[in-house]
């Protein structure tokens, strides 16, 4: 249901049906309704008389400024596509996560294969103690194995049992 002000405004505008109009006229005195109507007409007349919009002196300049501002703030087609989805190879989170993974793998490789710990099989030093023997050493390429060659052994016949 409309409140009293709405009913009075509708009565002034003469937009009520007969029943509602009679209802308003029964609730409010005729004098008061006429005063409200006179006040409303006076305000409308004042607004029509004094509320003129000032003329724009350079409408083309302002139009061009507005259009430029709109074009700056409106994303391009590429930007719209990029922003329409969260996925991008240059997403900062992707870049940081990739960098972190590279660091982790690098650290594991460094720990697993320390530079200082040479993984080599090699003969550091060799000497023969017994006269009649000659000893020489050799280390293979890539340190896959080492060899110490001893010359001067007595031949062992094939029927000799090796314990």
């Amino acid at each position, binding site marked *: 249901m409309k409140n009293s002000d709405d009913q009075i405004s509708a009565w002034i505008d003469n937009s009520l049906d007969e029943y509602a109009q009679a209802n308003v006229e029964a609730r409010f005195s005729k004098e008061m309704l006429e005063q409200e109507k006179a006040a409303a007409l006076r305000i409308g007349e004042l607004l029509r008389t004094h509320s003129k919009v000032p003329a724009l002196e350079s409408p083309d300049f302002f139009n061009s400024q507005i259009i430029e501002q709109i074009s700056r703030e409106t994303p391009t087609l590429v930007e719209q596509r990029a922003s329409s989805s969260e996925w991008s190879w240059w997403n900062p*989170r992707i870049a940081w996560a990739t960098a972190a993974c590279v660091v982790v793998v690098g650290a594991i490789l460094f720990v697993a294969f320390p530079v200082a710990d040479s993984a080599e099989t090699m003969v*550091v030093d060799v000497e023969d103690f017994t006269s009649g023997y000659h000893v020489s050493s050799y280390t293979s390429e890539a340190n896959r194995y080492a060899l110490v060659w001893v010359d001067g052994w007595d031949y062992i016949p094939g029927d*000799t049992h090796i314990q």
Partner: protein
Amino acid sequence: MNLSPTVAFLLLLFSATCLVAETISAGVPDPGEEAVVVAALILGTREDNPPALPWFLTEFESDLVKIFGYNRYDLMNMSEKPFREHTSEWLIPSNDFQLKIDAKGKKRLSCAMDVGLFHHEKRVLQTSVSLTREKPLFIAGPQWGRGRLIIVLIVK
């Protein structure tokens, strides 16, 4: 459950990193893992249809052929001891050949030691070596019949 492409990619990247780390670390011996020094006496001969080499020599078959010229290598006996730093151990792959191992130091991938080779209780040679796991030291022994005795020292 719906995952955004970014979250899915991050999960995939993390999984791949874990997989790479696991693969790398699985191939490297644990520093705390005990090293074992093995001395083996093998006999190299020539034969038309040689049997397979002992397991610890299969990787070095072509090297053995090149060094000693034989195509058959039989394991005669072997002896093994744990590698403990700054201790001395005897490895006796046969009664005729004995090895005295003076363990010096152990790194993640290699063991340093002094090795003395004795034949009939007479020291034939003394050497300092650094042995990487599964990469052996071959010592050429005497000729025996139509072949040669070879002492293999390897760290497991």
